[in-house]
């Protein structure tokens, strides 16, 4: 059934007018979404939307590494952590530094990219499962250091984390308060929503352009067959390093935004499970397919919240008590989803067309 829908979608896509109408519709929905959600479900849900957008950013970044270049990275959240801590250290009372955002965002991206290259350099020769384990180890090392670098010199403030991080400030426009723009009341979460949305759209644009670029095709070539790619004259070492660095950049920027949005960072937010969650988004949505990954990220970021609000009451009604708390239910479902998707729909929920063709022809 999904394939039939996809077919119709592809036929629609060939129609120029339908495409523009579609874009306009999507833009309109995205623009009014926070207001609808706010009045319909409450302000917490706008916050959840904001987080979903951050996850989209992360998933897009990881998609470059895993989906395009085929390098399984299980420590991706480390870059998120690096970005978040870069922002937190340079824009909080912790060191009494308060740099503006236009310095911080490129800086977060840069620092994360440096870490990406640091991780990439020793692991370039590895493939598949080895790479997965090493990246996982790297993620854990970063977390352990964040957790323990509070003595003898207090750099990260250890397990307590850093709080009172400066909120986003664009010129005179502070994101911490409700602002009135063109007669519209915009609460803080709405402002963040539009900022994140803008960045997500920019990232989607970058990813789509990357995909068809020389570099993007080189990544896909490496993913499909590294030896053949090398024979075709691709400098696999540099191209893979670039994949790591670019993926890390996305993670770093998302981390910085997270720090300013949350106002608080601690090592706890950057555990292995977060890495796996972002990986789930990419795998579930469809590795290598930008739209699929966005779908996966939104689904996996919002579903747990839906579960949180519905699972307990339903269990209460059925069994008279809460047997599974939402948190463990979420993880159970994640585990199950990873297995089932790989067994039943190995290309994800919304696969890329070339991938789909490969998989169908193989059967």
């Amino acid at each position, binding site marked *: 059934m999904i394939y039939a829908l996809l077919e119709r979608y592809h036929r629609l896509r060939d129609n120029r007018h339908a495409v523009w109408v579609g874009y306009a519709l999507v833009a309109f929905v995205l623009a009014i979404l926070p207001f609808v959600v706010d009045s319909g479900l409450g302000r917490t849900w706008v916050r959840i939307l904001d987080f979903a957008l951050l996850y989209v950013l992360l998933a897009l970044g990881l998609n470059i590494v895993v989906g395009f270049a085929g390098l399984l990275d299980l420590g991706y959240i480390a870059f998120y952590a690096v970005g978040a801590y870069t922002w937190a250290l340079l824009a909080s009372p912790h060191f009494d530094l308060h740099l503006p955002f236009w310095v911080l965002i490129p800086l977060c991206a840069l620092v994360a990219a440096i870490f990406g290259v640091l991780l990439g350099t020793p692991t370039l020769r590895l493939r598949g499962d080895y790479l997965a384990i*090493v990246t996982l180890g790297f993620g854990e090392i970063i977390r352990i250091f964040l957790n323990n670098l509070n003595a003898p010199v207090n750099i990260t403030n250890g397990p307590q984390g850093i709080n009172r991080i400066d909120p986003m400030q664009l010129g005179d426009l502070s994101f911490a308060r409700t602002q009135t723009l063109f007669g519209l009341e915009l609460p803080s979460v709405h402002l963040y929503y539009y900022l994140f949305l803008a960045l997500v759209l920019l990232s989607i644009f970058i990813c789509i352009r990357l995909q068809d670029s020389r570099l993007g095709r080189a990544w896909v070539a490496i993913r499909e067959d590294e030896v053949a790619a090398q024979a075709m004259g691709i400098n696999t070492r540099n191209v893979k390093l670039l994949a790591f660095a670019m993926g890390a950049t996305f993670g770093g920027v998302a981390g910085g935004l997270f720090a300013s949005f949350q106002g608080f960072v601690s090592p706890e937010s950057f555990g292995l499970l977060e890495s796996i969650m972002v990986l789930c988004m990419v795998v579930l949505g469809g590795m290598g397919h930008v739209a699929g990954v966005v779908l996966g990220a939104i689904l996996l970021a919002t579903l747990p919240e839906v579960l949180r609000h519905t699972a307990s009451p339903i269990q209460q009604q059925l069994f008279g008590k809460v047997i599974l708390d939402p948190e463990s239910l979420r993880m159970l479902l994640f585990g*199950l989803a990873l297995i089932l998707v790989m067994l039943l729909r*190995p290309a994800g929920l919304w696969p890329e067309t070339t991938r789909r063709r490969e998989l169908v022809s193989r059967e």
Partner: protein
Amino acid sequence: MDIFLQQILNGLVLGSVYALVALGYTMVYGILGLINFAHGEVVMIGAMVALTVMNALVSTGLGLPGPLVLMLALLAAMLVCMALGFSVERVAYRPLRKAPRLAPLITAIGLSILLQNIAMLIWGRQYQTVPRLISHESHTIFGATITDLQILILITSTVIMCGLLALVHYTRLGRAMRATSENPTVAGLMGVNINRIISATFVIGSAMAAVAGVLVSANYSIAHYSMGFMLGLKAFTAAVLGGIGNLGGAMLGGLLLGLIESIGAGYIGDVTGGFLGSHYQDVFAFVVLILVLVFRPTGLLGERVAERA
């Protein structure tokens, strides 16, 4: 000097547990060429099952002797883990044997999360105390102390490892396993039932994982649903250090990693002038892993190259 000797003893005890788990990784890798990510969770399930059996037997009030209870618990844990290892292979690996290499890895991660959360549902979030069934009486050798339990760990793991080596080198099953790891297709043509051999490999590895789980939880007197993960990673590191796919290598790697960790954690404070403390113990395994993969991807004893193009 006695502190140094103490660290060596602790390292050997820890290392022999790593070695038992590492053997499971290395056997599966040798035959299928993939990392069994869920192996650490098998260790955890082993520890948890044994714990349940121990508690049940102790609370019956029959006054069974401690070592007997431990034996029964170990037996139960091994049986459960063998069944678990068998089903892990069936669910996560067999259907994907011809799929791209990322696929089985991802199902294995999924399985690992699933097992952890199921264990959490059954045994709860809190740390479980393991009853003391073996005397923790300590002996002093050259100023270092070693408990009865630690001696038991060393002996058990040595016996099991020797048993495994004998199995692999002197039995029909072992010969079939070696043939399969050499070349599955040709082994199949020679009349080896590949699927049975792969299942057997998982079952044997899981039985050893169960033993390791029981030993390590008894040693620390504690069991937890998340204990398998880190242990699994370190054991994998040990397998890579020794040379993946090589049984002797896994044993050597396990012991070495145990020594590196305990000596490293004992002296890192002095070496760095107090800048880094013993809470960085978990970092050592990863640093070792990265160094080995960069400088000697075949591991210490391996002929097989860790990267596969």
